[in-house]
């Protein structure tokens, strides 16, 4: 049986609200939690195979040029070393999210320092690493563009990424208040806890890869295309993924190198990136330079918005950090200029990192809005509320559902925004308060799942969807349990196997909505089948704790299934509701910071976020996602920065000691509240993505609070002490 829905019209039946199990939306523990906390969940590098060898990638050490050869013989003589490999199939960089094909390949052309150009395979990881560190590369240096900010660097302005509406120049001239400023953000690394790794083995022409990936449906094709083999011959397994944050959307160089080596040597081969290689080989978020122009009337209502963003990327990569993504729909303004500029550089490939687009674009916009609030003297919450549009002004589309005003009011009330004290101090610390809006586009991707109701009343859910720490195992279990009235302990959810029905995968905050809807569709069909057996309408059927109730008559599910399992494949795909409506999640951030008046050190003291993301599927994992997003926001505002040496483009701080993600001491008490919302245009669950909303704009609240505390407006992130010191009073 199949159940397929193309989301062409809203589903406002809110069917999940009618269910009886009481499992969905609760803070149910993750079913796989015990495996993870006892260290028995097998992550990519942990599925060791008999006779397995270890490979370590070798980095190019020039920014541009050619690899003319490698001194393989010397290394192959080293103890434990089996083979040195390089060649046309090595990935220059990871595949972009949903690329579905191989990225640029080949060892012979070098495009950046850190490009993985060769592999040393040995009996042990240690021997392989020593071999990799010893391998001499014969390289000829070419001319590199190492610095995106250098004078005279060539700038591309793709036609599709430019848009104009009305007359912004006139609006700026006529405005009662304007903001006209440049904001810059540095590069970021996803920095997942689990490094990218893959174990490959072949059975004839069948390749199995145990890897760390977010989107198996696409990843299978990327692997096959990279190796020049049929996708049917690729079996990908990624049952547990130790964090993705965008960096595992597409396949990374380790997977292809492992497959090539396993083929060549005829045994399983494991390739794991070192921490330094994760920084150098895997996607960076591009640095951005963003020019904002805001034109407001005397009441603070925007009449125009200009947003021009410059980002950088390797040659021959089409991805450009979508900095301006939220600008067309967040605030009013009939006069608009939105432009993207791309600079080609010889640096680590740029790609999706933690909410590409809004994370940096909205952060800059929300700092600009704070500047407008200061200029107009209007409370920043009120200013934002005055600028909430009825329709998406830059796209001329209606909103599917819009809860920004509610989120602003809710956040302000919970935080106590009205009670904040101007000019408060705590010893040496200057106290300040700041806020910002949150917004993130919402979408689904085509997704399939199989749900089996067994004769013993247990449920099996199967899809190639991944759980990258986000809680997929939990929410799919909850959706099916809720729809079919089956308790958690009778449900098994299998994920991360490319042989299972193909899902949208994890990424872009679409995983829960997409995979969840496919499970929902399958369950709805199962409910109809059960109802038919009881001769009732599906709507009149109550399913709870393994029992079907209709007209005061209770029947155990086990009596209804029969001898053969009932199996349904459910599917969802995006349709008109995605194209014709602006779907988005909204929220607000409020925070209190302390700025040390002597040193300029900034420490966050408390932070609150209120979010509207449709139906919340699991109260605990959704909250955790938001806490994580807000923590990313702390990092973006205060510490995180990829430092490139402008002379050769090489990444200087390529480890977690010097790339400063927030540590526990940087993260004070954070609170999260969800706004009740059902978005019928999103999907039949009325749920929207929650994975990335928590970072989108979060950093701006902190930057705005620093201004409130000190009068120092930081427009060049992160707000490290050196940028604040010059504006502090003498000691």
């Amino acid at each position, binding site marked *: 049986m199949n159940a397929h829905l193309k989301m062409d019209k809203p589903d406002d039946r809110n069917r999940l609200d009618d269910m009886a199990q009481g499992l969905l939306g609760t803070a149910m523990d993750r079913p796989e939690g015990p495996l993870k906390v006892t260290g028995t969940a097998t992550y990519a590098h942990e599925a060791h195979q008999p006779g397995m060898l270890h490979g370590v990638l070798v980095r190019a050490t020039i920014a541009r040029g050619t690899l003319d050869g490698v001194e393989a013989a010397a290394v192959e003589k080293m103890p434990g070393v089996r083979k040195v490999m390089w060649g046309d199939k090595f990935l220059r960089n990871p595949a972009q999210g949903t690329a579905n094909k191989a990225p640029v390949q080949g060892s012979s052309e070098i495009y950046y320092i850190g490009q993985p150009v060769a592999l040393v395979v040995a009996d042990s990881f240690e021997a392989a690493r*020593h071999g990799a560190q010893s391998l001499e590369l014969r390289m000829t240096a070419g001319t590199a563009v190492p610095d995106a900010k250098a004078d005279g660097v060539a700038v591309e302005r793709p036609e599709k990424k430019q848009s104009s509406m009305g007359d912004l120049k006139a609006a700026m001239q006529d405005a009662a208040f304007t903001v006209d400023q440049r904001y810059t953000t540095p590069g970021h690394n996803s920095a997942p806890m689990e490094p990218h790794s893959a174990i490959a083995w072949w059975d004839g022409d069948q390749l199995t890869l145990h890897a760390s990936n977010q989107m198996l449906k696409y990843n299978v094709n990327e692997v096959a295309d990279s190796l020049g083999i049929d996708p049917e011959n690729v079996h990908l397994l990624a049952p547990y993924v130790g964090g993705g944050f965008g960096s595992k959307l597409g396949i990374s160089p380790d997977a292809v190198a492992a497959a090539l080596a396993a083929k060549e040597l005829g045994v399983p081969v494991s390739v794991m990136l070192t921490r330094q290689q994760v920084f150098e080989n895997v996607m960076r978020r591009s640095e951005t330079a963003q020019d904002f122009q805001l034109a407001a009337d005397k009441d603070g209502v925007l009449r125009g918005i200009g947003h021009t963003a410059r980002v950088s990327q390797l040659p021959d990569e089409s991805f450009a950090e979508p900095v301006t993504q939220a600008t067309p729909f967040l605030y009013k303004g009939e006069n608009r200029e939105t432009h993207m500029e791309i600079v080609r550089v010889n640096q680590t490939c740029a790609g999706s990192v933690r909410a590409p687009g809004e994370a940096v674009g909205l952060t800059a916009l929300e700092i600009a809005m704070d500047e407008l609030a200061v200029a107009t003297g209007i409370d920043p919450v009120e200013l934002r509320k005055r600028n909430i549009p009825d329709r998406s002004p830059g796209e001329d589309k209606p909103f599917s559902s819009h809860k920004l005003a509610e989120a602003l009011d809710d956040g302000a009330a919970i935080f106590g925004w009205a009670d904040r004290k101007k000019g408060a101090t705590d010893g040496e610390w200057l106290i300040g308060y700041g806020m910002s809006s949150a917004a993130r586009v919402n979408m689904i991707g085509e997704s399939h799942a199989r749900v089996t109701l067994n004769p013993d009343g247990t449920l099996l859910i199967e899809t190639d969807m991944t759980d990258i720490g986000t809680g997929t195992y939990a929410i799919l279990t909850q959706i099916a349990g809720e729809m079919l009235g089956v308790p958690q302990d009778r449900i098994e959810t299998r994920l991360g196997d490319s042989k299972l029905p193909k899902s949208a995968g994890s990424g872009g905050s679409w995983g829960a909505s997409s995979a969840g809807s496919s499970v929902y569709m399958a369950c709805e069909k199962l409910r109809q089948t059960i109802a038919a057996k009881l001769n009732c309408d599906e709507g009149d059927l109550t399913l709870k704790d393994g029992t079907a109730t209709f007209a005061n008559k209770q029947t155990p599910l086990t009596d209804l299934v029969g001898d053969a399992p009932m199996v349904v494949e459910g599917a969802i795909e995006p349709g008109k509701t995605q194209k014709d409506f602006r779907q988005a999640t909204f929220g607000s951030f409020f925070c209190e910071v302390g700025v040390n008046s002597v*040193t300029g050190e900034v420490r966050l003291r408390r932070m609150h976020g209120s979010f509207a993301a449709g139906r919340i599927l699991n109260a605990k994992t959704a909250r955790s996602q938001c806490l994580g997003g807000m923590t990313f926001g702390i990092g973006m505002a205060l*510490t995180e920065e990829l*430092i*490139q040496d402008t*002379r050769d483009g090489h990444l200087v*701080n390529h480890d977690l000691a010097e790339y400063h993600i927030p540590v526990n*001491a940087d993260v004070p008490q954070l609170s999260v509240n969800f706004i009740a919302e059902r978005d019928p245009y999103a999907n039949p669950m009325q749920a929207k993505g929650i994975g990335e909303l928590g970072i989108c704009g979060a950093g701006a609240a902190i930057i705005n609070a620093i201004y409130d505390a000190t009068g120092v407006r930081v427009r060049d992130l992160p707000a490290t*002490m050196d940028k604040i*010191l010059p504006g502090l009073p003498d000691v």
Partner: protein
Amino acid sequence: MKPFDYIRADSTTHATRAAGQGANFIAGGTNLLDLMKLEVMAPHKLVDINRLDLHQITEVDGGLRIGALVSNSDLAADMTVRKQYPVLSEALLAGASGQLRNKATTGGNLLQRTRCYYFYDTAMPCNKREPGTGCQAMEGATRLHAILGTSDACIASHPSDMAVAMRLLDAVVEIESAGGAVRSVPLSEFYRLPGQTPHIETVLEPSDLIIAVTLPAPAKGAQTYRKVRDRASYAFAMVSVAARVQMDEGTITDAALAFGGIGSQPWRNPAVEKALIGQKPSPELFAKAADILLADAKPQKDNAFKVPLTRRTLIATLKELCGKDAA
């Protein structure tokens, strides 16, 4: 990691005899193992000294003798240290993380290597790692780097917090050489300026083993350790100040100041202290002290902020220790 021989020493004599050119002692290994994995350091032999009887803290002549293998955690928690040398406890707890402090030792901490990005990347020239190859940090990314005591061959900073407090406390390093001779070297003479030989960081000879660090009887006055850093924990100091000031009737009768994050070694300048002693605290006096300290500062583009940052941090620290009389 290059293959290496491993020897577990059962006595200090055994340890020093087993050591020598190209060998390294290993205690906590919190820095050495990272450097070996990256092949920044590639000793052919490791002499494990963890079984040696160097774990005691004992009171000696009114002072304290700290065994070289006392962990940073144990030293920070020692009641005598907390009461008599609080600056040392504060400095230790400001460094690294709980897990690292459990492993890191007193002797090892004195010998930790710089965090210069270029020192850690074997594809980059570095006079400290490979003498004569040049300094790529110069004109490069230098946020972490020193502004005092540098040379045209090396601008690396010393990263330790503990050693800054030890420097303030006039610690003395007890060293046993091959053959069993023990000598004492004041910490003020232990480190060497980089000059043209930044790879030689201390006066230790290849077989020399630090067996203890001794602290003289506690000096009078209020002590504090202030560390300024980019994040609230697990970050190296942009600047740190270890300070001790004794006041008597509104006059500074004794003062000691040591600095981290800004020097090629834990930094102390007697002229700064001399300028303070015998004076009444005032903003002008503190400014003068900062002027003396920073007179020879040679910042790079990225770390130029350390000059005003050090100045402000020093002045605030002196204000705090001199009390409300400081005006």
